[in-house]
């Protein structure tokens, strides 16, 4: 292994600048003559806007402009869009109520924005916003997804009956019913997948800027996918034609999905920059982030598993009500449908699966993709069901899983829910996880804990996810409004160093390091001579951005293809200069060599020759730059087994995670240190969902958990130090063999953790516990079970 090639734990290039305060985050940027925006937001969950009086705000010191939804309308600014069309059970498209960037007639959730005040300073903008007086007529609100479809519930949108966005299904209903009628045992569960707030460390921010001379607009924004933002802002919001609009996403401090979407504030800042002819800047406060970043999860599910007498799974039936919030965020519709139900086979050979999903509107913040997006919800359904089934039938949880896993020689494996798994070895991950977790020693540890008055439990989560999103034709057929290929470009400079451009976007993932490793390995260029550029639509060719653990699998693959083109062109140049036939030129470790001789040219020399083409092949273009676009052949399917072991203090209900093992199959691993970081972070996220995080509204739609004082983020001391292992079956669906690792922890950990908690409490009579399983909730469950016993 070279020091900086594939498989090396190279320290992250970007960390020096992040750790020394030299990153370029949006709020650090100061544009000449910049102004500040403050949004006027609804304090009510649901209200009619009778009138907006901006007169006293308009004369407040420093106020430059005040705009409402009427001004956007007058300028022809289109509403915010949802980019994935779902066809419901009856063949009808999903309901897509209007989503104006600034609300005009009604506000529909606390924090819904209806006006913007632009001023010389941030404090003046806030003063101005306080002076905007809004005449609200409060309306009743619907908050809980399970109530949304009730006839008695108020309508979030008058034109959406029953608050039903879509009623959608997947799978063979008749075959599934038949499987249930033949079952020897049926296990059923009712579960809630708790609503989460994304809480990226850097809040969303934007600066819109207008250049009167060129009529170009620039949006600096905290985006995971700047090109998609440009496309939507041009084609749908109509703010500027694509070629007159530049979107720059500089260093971005985390996203977890919440920065995929095209939000109101960014749209308004960009549009307003042209109105006031000065840059307009907005940075979300943490309170605004809680109220307006698209939330995640929020499912209510009833699920049933049918088994034969040997514990073989015969059928799975799932009904889910998914909360969309007050409006459809950019990709909201696909999350509880195609990113969810298509994974319900899990690692198992369940032959018949039927899932129906009712997506509903409520007077809450919009809900969209959050780390894992749909796949954590699917894993939670399956793995809670399987664990419960094991308990009910008395088969060991590992054994029940093993009996039903897709066999290692069964690939490609077609599931009954669209996905075709390309490769895997699920039994191997299960074995390895049990070995690392010392599963055989558990009984002794449990007994020892008991002697100290503690309850110990162990829980499995055998997860699968679909990453490397995604083959364009496949997602197109399922309703996506975009293709999901990725672009990459390699530019050699005349002096032999390299600038790499990728359409994916790094906001914590470490692309500047891993992509440089790929190129260093592939082209033999020293790692330090490679720079990776991303996040600027004027620099990088159109690309699709980063989400769904796709960057290495799709973006990395595009770079591999571009590198192959560089080698092909370099071969021609080297052959010419070395006076050999192209066929005799071999390329390895950065050197073009004439086979069987010591005649060689380094790729740096070839690059120089390409830019100073004095002695150069006839007809060949000078320069050494290559571009490639990669559209994957299939999703990739990372999978594995996580095992969580907890100890509960029955006196207080406090849970401690005493061991956590993650064995993942991510295919080829480019940088083990970065992958370990992703696993650790993902598990923190998943444990957070299982034990700590929960977004709560009261019955009037007020956000109770609107700050870190009440929204419980997992902290370092809540986070287990994960014992990491790998089993690796390289993906055949991309040239790197990678599968993606950014979401696995968040997908696997909730089920592993809750299964462990329930295992600890099972004998007391507690057979389910809702997430987040706080000490309080556990204590209450123990008490309730004792009272019932």
């Amino acid at each position, binding site marked *: *292994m070279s020091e900086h090639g*594939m*498989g*090396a*734990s190279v*320290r992250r290039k970007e960390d020096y600048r992040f750790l020394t305060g030299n990153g370029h985050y949006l709020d650090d940027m100061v544009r000449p003559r910049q102004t500040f925006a403050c949004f006027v937001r609804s304090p009510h969950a649901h209200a009619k806007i009778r009138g907006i009086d901006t007169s006293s705000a308009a004369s407040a010191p420093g106020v430059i402009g005040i705009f409402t939804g009427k001004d956007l309308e007058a300028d022809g600014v289109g509403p915010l869009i949802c980019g994935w069309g779902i066809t419901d059970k009856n063949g009808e498209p999903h309901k897509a109520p209007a989503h104006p960037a600034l609300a005009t007639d009604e506000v529909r959730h606390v924090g819904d924005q209806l006006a913007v005040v632009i001023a010389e300073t941030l*404090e003046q903008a*806030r003063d101005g916003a*306080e002076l905007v007086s809004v005449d609200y007529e409060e309306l009743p609100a619907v908050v809980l997804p399970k109530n949304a479809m009730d006839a008695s519930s108020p309508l979030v949108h008058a034109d959406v009956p029953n608050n039903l966005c879509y009623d959608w299904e997947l799978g063979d209903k008749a075959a599934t019913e038949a499987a249930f009628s033949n079952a020897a045992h049926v296990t059923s569960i009712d579960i809630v997948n708790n609503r989460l707030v994304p809480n990226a460390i850097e809040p969303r921010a934007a600066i819109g800027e207008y250049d009167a001379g060129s009529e170009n607009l620039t949006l600096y924004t905290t985006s995971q996918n700047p090109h998609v933002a440009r496309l939507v802002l041009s084609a749908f919001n109509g703010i500027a034609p694509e070629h007159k609009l530049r979107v720059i996403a500089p260093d971005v401090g985390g996203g977890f999905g919440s920065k995929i979407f095209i939000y109101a504030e960014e749209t308004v800042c960009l549009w307003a920059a042209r109105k006031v002819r000065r840059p307009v800047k907005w940075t979300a406060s943490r*309170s605004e982030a809680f109220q307006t970043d698209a939330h995640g999860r929020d499912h209510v599910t009833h699920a049933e598993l049918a088994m034969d007498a040997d514990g073989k799974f015969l059928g799975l039936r799932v009904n889910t009500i998914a909360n969309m919030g007050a409006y459809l965020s950019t990709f909201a519709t696909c999350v509880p449908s195609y990113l969810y139900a298509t994974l319900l086979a899990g690692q198992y050979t369940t032959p018949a699966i039927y899932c129906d999903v009712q997506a509903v509107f409520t007077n809450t913040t919009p809900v969209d993709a959050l780390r894992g997006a749909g796949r954590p919800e699917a894993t939670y359904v399956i793995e809670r069901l399987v664990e419960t089934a094991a308990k009910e039938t008395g088969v060991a949880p590992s054994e029940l899983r093993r009996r039903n896993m897709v066999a*290692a*020689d*069964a*690939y490609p494996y077609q599931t009954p829910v669209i996905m075709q798994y390309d*490769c*895997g*070895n699920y039994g*191997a991950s299960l074995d390895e996880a049990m070995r*690392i977790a010392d599963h055989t020693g558990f009984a002794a540890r449990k007994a020892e804990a008991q002697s100290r008055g503690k309850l110990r439990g162990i829980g499995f989560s055998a997860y699968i996810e679909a990453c490397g999103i995604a083959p364009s034709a496949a997602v197109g057929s399922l309703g996506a409004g975009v293709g999901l290929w990725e672009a990459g470009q390699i530019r050699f400079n005349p002096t032999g160093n390299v600038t790499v451009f990728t359409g994916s976007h790094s906001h914590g993932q470490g692309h500047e390091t891993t992509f440089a490793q790929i190129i260093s*390995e*592939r082209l033999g260029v020293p790692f330090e001579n490679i720079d990776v550029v991303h996040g600027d639509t004027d620099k990088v060719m159109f690309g699709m951005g980063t989400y769904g653990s796709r960057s290495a699998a799709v973006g990395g693959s595009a770079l591999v293809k571009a590198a192959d083109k560089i080698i092909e062109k370099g071969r021609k140049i080297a052959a010419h200069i070395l006076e050999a036939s192209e066929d005799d030129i071999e390329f390895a470790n950065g050197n073009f060599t004439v086979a069987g001789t010591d005649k060689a040219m380094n790729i740096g020399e070839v690059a120089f020759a390409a830019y100073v083409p004095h002695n150069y092949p006839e007809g060949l273009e000078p320069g050494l730059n290559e571009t490639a676009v990669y559209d994957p052949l299939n999703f990739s399917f990372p999978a594995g087994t996580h095992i969580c072991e907890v100890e509960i*203090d029955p*006196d*207080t209900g*406090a849970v*401690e995670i005493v061991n956590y093992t993650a064995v993942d*199959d991510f*295919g*080829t*691993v480019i940088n*083990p*240190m970065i992958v*370990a970081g992703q*696993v*650790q972070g993902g598990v923190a996220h998943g444990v957070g969902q299982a034990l*700590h995080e929960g977004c*709560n509204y009261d019955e009037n739609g007020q956000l*109770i958990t609107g700050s*870190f004082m*009440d929204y419980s*983020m997992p902290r*370092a*001391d*809540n986070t287990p*130090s994960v*014992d*990491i*292992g*790998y*089993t*690796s*079956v*390289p993906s055949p669906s991309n040239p*790197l*063999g990678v599968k993606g690792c950014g979401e696995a922890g968040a997908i696997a950990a909730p089920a592993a953790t809750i299964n462990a908690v329930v295992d600890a409490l099972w004998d007391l009579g507690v057979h389910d516990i809702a997430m987040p399983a*706080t*000490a*309080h909730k556990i*204590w*209450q469950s123990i008490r309730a079970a004792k009272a019932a016993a």
Partner: protein
Amino acid sequence: MYDFEYQRPASLADAITALKSAEDGKLLAGGHTLIPTLKQRLARPSDLIDLSGIAELRGIKSEGGTITVGATTSHAEVTESDAVKSAIPALAELAGMIGDPQVRHCGTIGGSIANNDPAADYPGALLGLGATIVTDSREITADDFFLGLFETALEETEIITAVKFPVPQAANYQKFAQPASRFSLVGAFVAKTGGGVRVAITGAGQEGVFRVPEMEAALSANFSPDAISGITVSDSNLNTDIHASAEYRAHLIGVMVGSRGYRLRVSLPKGRQCASCRQAPLPCSGATFQRSRVPVAGRRVRYRITAYPCQDSPFSVSVRPNAPDGPPTPARFPGSRPAFPQPVPAG
């Protein structure tokens, strides 16, 4: 934040004058409660009078069985003070459980008690130890000082100058933290003094910190956890919120008061080796350790020791289990790709 005048007097006398002459003046100590309030525009004082320039308000003195802590002494100074640690270790430990290092280095005892947040920790210590609050004009006993939610006996323009703690025979503070804010959900301060045992509960009460006379009587008769095992605290004046019901708080009071004190548990991974030098078992020769408190652990405070193996392994996750097959070989690309880590053949 709205505009205000900022003043930084150098003496207590100047501070008093400034406060009395300001239209709507507010004292600024550590700012860790006040500044967030201002930033959210929930308060609009005309003047901020910063106490940090007044040397006489800061510092810790130990004399004649009393520990005197100046009003602007930070939580960190109390935690680290040898005088406090030797005389009232429970007080030093309590200060060390407040917030995080940043908060502890800014927040002050005067600011904490003047604010009287019902979930704050210090009120428990003051009431539990029977401390005396000294102001620019008088002395107030803790029993008379804390009046209710965010309410104290302080006059509008009164300045706390110090808190005097009588040294007890024994004391203990047990904190069950609210999971999000990590203020106390239930904090129990138990002190054995010459005049009997005092039990003060913070975090739980609808009216802020309070004493539990039944427990005090039982513990004064028999200073052992068993003494209170039969006593249940009524939940009728306790808080209910999304984090805990009154019932749960009432139960936790029993658990926290009945605690037998601290234990230090060191949990090093057993039989594991450093991923870098493969030296088994840990700790390897190059390892460094970090001790972190696990504060929500109910009856006991636990410390987690994280081992950071030598070189190149910044993550404690690289403490990997013994792998019988030697160090993993990283993948090579292109070629036959013996992938990192050990590949499992597909099919």
